[in-house]
C-alpha cells in the first residue's frame, strides 16, 4: 500500500517553508509525499510545526515557499472551501447553534444536495460513528467523546478523499482515546480515505498509522512505518522521542564491516551498528532499547563485549520487571524483562554483566 514513487503521490509537500513573522521559519524544509489511502501521522513535540503543516494543506495558511500538490495539482492558490478536504479540529469546532443533524447536513446543503439524499447521508454518517440516536441533540448536550464522533462524522459526510485531523483525541480520557483510535482506524480503512493525522501521543501514532512523520524544529526527522521507526531510528532525536530508550555517550574506536566499536565515556567498549557515524574518533550517542538488553552470555556471540552493571532498583510491574542499573556512569539505565517462569529477579546492590546484539544497539549522532 505504501508507494511513494513519483507520480503516484496523492498529497505532496515540495520543499515547503513557512514563516509567520517573516523572520523565523516555523516549517523549514518539508518534503513529503503520500499515496492515496495512506494513514499518515505527524508526530512531534509542541511547537514543532505540525498544525502549521496541516493548515497549509487545508488552505488556512499559505506556504511562504515551495509547493503543495493534491492529486498532482498545485493547490497554493485554491481557497480552502474548494479543496474538498475534510477536517477534524482539535476542539471539534462543531457549530453550537445547530443540532447534530444540522451540523452534518451543513456541507451537504452547501453542495446543494437534495433533501432526501441529504437526510440519507446524514443518517448513514451518524450510524457509522454509532451516534444514530443523537441527531436531534444540540452540541452542548453531548459529551466530549460524543462530540468527537460527530466531528468525525461531519468531516466524512461529504465523502472527501483526504481528511485532516489535528489532535482529535487530545481532550479524551485514556480509555476513550484508545477506543476512538481503533474506531478512526476502522472507519479510515473501511472508507479507504487518505488521512493526515496530527498527534503528540506516540502510542497513538504507532498504533494507528501506516507511516509516521516525526517532526522537530520544523523538519521531518524521520518518515517511516511504525516498526521501522521504533527499531531503526535514524537519529538520536527520534530514538529519544519514540519509546523508551537508553543512551550512552562515547567515541568511535573502530569501524569494521557493518559494526562499530565504541568506547564509552564512562569506561567500557561496546559493539554497535553505525547509523550516523562513519569515521573513527567521531563522538556518538548510542541507543539501546530496554527490552533488548541481555544478561547471560549464552545469547550473545563468543567475542561480544559486555559491561558491568550495578542494580539500583527493581520494580515489579506485573507483566514486566523494570530494573534500573548503573552502567558506565549512567544511573538511569533501564532494563525490561518479561515476567516469565525462571526469569531472574535482581536485588538492589547486585553486580551483573550485561550485553546486547550489535544490531540492537545503534550509534547515532552526538
Amino acid at each position, binding site marked *: 500500500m505504501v508507494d511513494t514513487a513519483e507520480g503516484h503521490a496523492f498529497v505532496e509537500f515540495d520543499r515547503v517553508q513557512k514563516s509567520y513573522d517573516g523572520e523565523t521559519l516555523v516549517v523549514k524544509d518539508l518534503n513529503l509525499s503520500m499515496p492515496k489511502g495512506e494513514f499518515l501521522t505527524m508526530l512531534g513535540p509542541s511547537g514543532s510545526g505540525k498544525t502549521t503543516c496541516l493548515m497549509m494543506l487545508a*488552505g*488556512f495558511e499559505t506556504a511562504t515557499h515551495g509547493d503543495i500538490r493534491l492529486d498532482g495539482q498545485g493547490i497554493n492558490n485554491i481557497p*480552502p*472551501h474548494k479543496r474538498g478536504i475534510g477536517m477534524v*479540529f482539535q476542539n471539534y469546532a462543531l*457549530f453550537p447553534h445547530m443540532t447534530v443533524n444540522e451540523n452534518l447536513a451543513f*456541507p451537504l446543503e452547501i453542495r446543494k444536495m437534495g433533501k432526501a439524499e441529504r437526510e440519507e447521508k446524514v443518517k448513514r454518517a451518524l450510524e457509522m460513528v454509532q451516534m444514530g440516536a443523537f441527531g436531534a441533540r444540540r452540541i452542548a448536550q453531548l459529551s466530549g467523546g460524543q462530540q468527537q464522533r460527530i466531528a468525525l462524522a461531519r468531516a466524512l459526510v461529504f465523502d472527501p478523499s483526504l481528511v485532516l485531523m489535528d489532535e482529535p483525541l487530545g481532550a479524551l480520557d485514556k480509555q476513550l482515546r484508545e477506543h476512538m483510535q481503533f474506531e478512526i482506524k476502522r472507519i479510515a480503512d473501511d472508507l479507504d480515505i487518505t488521512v493526515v493525522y496530527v498527534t503528540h501521543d506516540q502510542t497513538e501514532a504507532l498504533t494507528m498509522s501506516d507511516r509516521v512523520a516525526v517532526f522537530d524544529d520544523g523538519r521531518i526527522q524521520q518518515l517511516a512505518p511504525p516498526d521501522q521507526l521504533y527499531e531503526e531510528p535514524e537519529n538520536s532525536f527520534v530514538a529519544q522521542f519514540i519509546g523508551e530508550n537508553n543512551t550512552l555517550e562515547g567515541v568511535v574506536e573502530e569501524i569494521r564491516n557493518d559494526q562499530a566499536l565504541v568506547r564509552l565515556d564512562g569506561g567500557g567498549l561496546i559493539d554497535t551498528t553505525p547509523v550516523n557515524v562513519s569515521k573513527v574518533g567521531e563522538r556518538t550517542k548510542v541507543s539501546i532499547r530496554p527490552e533488548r538488553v541481555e544478561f547471560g552470555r549464552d545469547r550473545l556471540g563468543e567475542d561480544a563485549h559486555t559491561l558491568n552493571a550495578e542494580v539500583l532498583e527493581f520494580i515489579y510491574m506485573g507483566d514486566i520487571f523494570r530494573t534500573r542499573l548503573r552502567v558506565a556512569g549512567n544511573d538511569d539505565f533501564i532494563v525490561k524483562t518479561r515476567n516469565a517462569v525462571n526469569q531472574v529477579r535482581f536485588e538492589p546492590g547486585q553486580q551483573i554483566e550485561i550485553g546486547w546484539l550489535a544490531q540492537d544497539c545503534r550509534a547515532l549522532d552526538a
Partner: protein
Amino acid sequence: MQKLRALLLISPLLAFILITFIAPIADMLFRSVENKIVEETLPHTVALIDSGGDIETVVPGEKVFSALYVDMFVAAEKKEHTRLGTRLNYEESGISSLFRKSGRRVDRLDVEVYREQFENIDPSWGEIATWQSLADNSDASDMLPRAMWAYNAWRDYLIADGDNPDEEELEDFIYVALYDDLIALEDASEAGDLIQRSANAVPDFETVNFKEAFIGFDKDWGAEDVWKTIRTYSPPYTEGYFLNAIDLQKEFEGYSVRPENERIYGVLFMRTLFMSLVITGCAILLGYPIAWLMSNRPMREANLLMIMVLLPFWTSLLVRTSAWKVMLQQQGVINDTLVWLNIVDEAGRLVLINNQFGTIVAMTHILLPFMVLPLYSVMRTIPETYTRAAKSLGATNWTAFWRVYFPLSVPGIGAGSILVFILSIGYYITPEIVGGTTGTFISNRIAYHISSSLNWGLAAALGTILLAVVLLLYWVYDRIVGIDNVKLGG
C-alpha cells in the same frame, strides 16, 4: 450567620442603590398619582364637597363658599394658595391668577360682624383664654371642628411669623368658622353653657354672603369650569397626570380625548420609540463591522480601533454634541464642502440639524461604543476554528460568515441593542442641543416639566410611562430573543 455577614458586606452598596436608585424611582411613581395639595390647602371646602353637602349644582352654594373663605384665608396667610393655584392651573388655565387675586382679597374682606355678634352674646368670645380652653377640651374640639382648626391655624401662622399669639387680637375669620360650626351643630345639649347660648343665637345672626363676595373678587368663582376643576381634582390621589400624559383629560363628566391641538405626548412617545429604533439600527450597521474588525485583526490594529471607539468616551458629551452642530449646521463643514463641490448651491444648503436627522446622527455616534463593546466581547469568544471548519466543509467566506459566524454573534447584537435602545429612549442632552423641535424626545418634555413648568406630577407620570414601556419592551425581547441569549462578554 454566614448569610448575615454576606449581607453586611454588600450593605453599603445596597444602601447606596436604595438611596440613589430605588428611592427616587419610588418617589417618582408616587408623585405621578399624588394630589394631596387640594385637600390639604382647602380641607373644609373639599370635605363639604365630598360629603355631598350642597352640590346639586356645579357651582356650590353659600355654605361651601363660607368654608372656602376660611380655607382661603389660612392658605393666604401661609402663602399656600398660590401653590394650589399653580397646581390647578395645569388643568384649567386661569386658576392660578384667580387664586392669587382671591388670596389678596380675602384678607381685605370685612367679616367683623361675626365677631361683634359673638361678643354680644358673651364678651368672653373675644378672649384668647376662652378659645384656648376650648382647644384643650376634646369634647369642645369635636363639636367645633372648624373653629378649632381655624384657631390653631391662626396660632401656627403667627408663631411661624415670629409673633406670640397670646398677645395678639383674634382674627375675624375664626368667628366665621365658629359660626359655620354652630349652624351645623345639631344637638348642643351636651355642650357647655357658652356654646349652648351661642348655638341658640346664631340662626338669627347677620351674615356675610361669601358667594357674592367671591364672585365679586372674580366672576370666575361663579363659573362652572373652575368648580368642575376643583371638584375633579379634590381627591388625594388622581389618575389625572397619567391621562394627561397620554393625551386624555379627566373632566368632571369623565374622561375625554384632548382637543387635536393639545395632543403632543402620543406623538412624542411614538417619535421617541421610532427614533430610538432607528438609532439602534444605525448603531448595529456601523458597529458590527468595527467589532468584527477588532476581533479578527491582529492585536495592534485591534487596539488602535478600540482606542478610536473609546475616544468619544473620553471627551465631554457636550463637546461631542457641539462638534456635530459645527459639522451639520447650514453654514457648517458638510454644507460648505457640498457647496464647494458644487453638489448643492448656496440657496439649497441642506438642513441637517435641529431636526430628526441631526438627532439620529449625533446620537448614533455617541451611543456607538455601547454597541461595539458588547459585540466585540461576544465576537472575541467565537473561535476562528468555527469559520475555518465551515470553510473546510465547503462554505464560501460569505456562507461561513452568514451561517456560522453571524448566528453566534447575535447575542452580542442583542446586548448592544438593548443597551443602545434603552439609553437612547431616555436620552436628553443631545436631542436638546441638536434636536430642534422635530427631533426632541419625550425626555426633553419631562425635563421641561421638571425645570420650567414645574408640573412634577405630569413629569413623573411621563417618566413612569417611559419606564413601563422600557420594561414592556424588555419583556417582549425576553420572550422573543431570550435574555439568556444576551451576553455582555465571556
